[in-house]
């Protein structure tokens, strides 16, 4: 537990991006997104729209979900254009 004496004066936080220590993936309640790679056109819209930076991208190619932070909102699944009308993201029941 951090006490008030451990906090710099003025409530300054010195470690940029320290929120990454909080794994918000534990918030997912009913659903989690699933990536169906064969339907993916690598448009990266899911990467852009995800409010929780939970879509990994490497060298311009879409990678797996980051379930450590994904809150299961479903925006990526709604916005995914997929291939020939077949979505590359579907929401499925969460398994804890």
């Amino acid at each position: 537990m951090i006490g008030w004496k451990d906090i710099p004066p003025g409530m300054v936080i010195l470690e940029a991006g320290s929120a990454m220590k909080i794994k918000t993936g534990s918030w997912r309640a009913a659903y989690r997104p699933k990536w169906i790679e064969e339907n993916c056109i690598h448009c990266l819209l899911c990467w852009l729209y995800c409010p929780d930076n939970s879509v990994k991208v490497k060298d311009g190619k879409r990678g797996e979900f980051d379930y450590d932070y994904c809150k299961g909102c479903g925006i990526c699944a709604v916005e995914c254009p997929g291939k020939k009308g077949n979505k590359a993201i579907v929401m499925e029941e969460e398994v804890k």
Partner: protein
Amino acid sequence: MATPLNLKELSKQEIRFTAGHRLCAGCAAPTVVKMILLAACDYPVVAASSTGCLEVSSCISTYTAWKIPWIHNAFENAAATLSGVETMYRALKKQGKIDRDIKFIAICGDGGTYDIGFQSLSGAMERGHDMLYVCYDNGAYMNTGIQRSGATPTFADTTTCPAGAVIPGKPQQRKDLTRIMAAHGIPYVAQASPSHWPDLMKKVRKAIETPGAKFINIFTPCNRGWRSRTDDAILLSRLAVETCFWPLYEVENGVTRVTVKPKEKKPIVEFLKAQGRFKHIFEPGREQMIEAIQQAIDKNWERLLKEEEISASGEKAE
């Protein structure tokens, strides 16, 4: 060379607002912040936010989601705070103590912008500080439990204008803040939406490349306050544009330009029906309420198109 605004290139950039923030699942605010910071990826950025969902949820205890210097002062003074920082920067630059080209961006809620922070915003813009002020407009004081603001749309149900037997939700009309900011005569004012991300990012980039005071109002769905689904933030922001509820336009040096014109203007019902905050206006006998909302939108859209026409002909005459 400036980083091209395509997702392949942008995805190679660091996202300077991290995961682990505590904004609700499906909140559009973090996506809007991400788009702003990606558009500004070629520069160091110093930011400020007023008290509100974005601020509270991005700096809980010793955890910050920001990877840039970011300041929270109070609810009403983000613009004044950032003006001070920008002035200090100019002084240090003059003394040769800083040589980097830093961009200053305030990102604040509608309550902190339309209402309580309005005088500090107006002052900062009038003084012409070299900064971009962005309002993420979710149409109420969400952080404290969905109280009405000057940005709340007519007839929306909030906890301080509850729809019931006495009033049908918010009785007043929205304040058109974007026009008020344009009336300040600053070099750049725009309205944007995350659904139309290339337009949004182009506007942010244009704003930060323009010296002086700039203002951008960004439509930012809030599923908790709007009583909508957690997966529809982008869908709703697209509908807001397609129904002309939230026209995408810019006012650059006094010249108005509508940047996205919907191919087919959708009826406002499509935007309203997806949100629980408007549920009561779909009750039988209240058809005239929807009609009134539609008329107000039509009138505003026509006015905007006319304004664009007039400023285009004014440009030619010069």
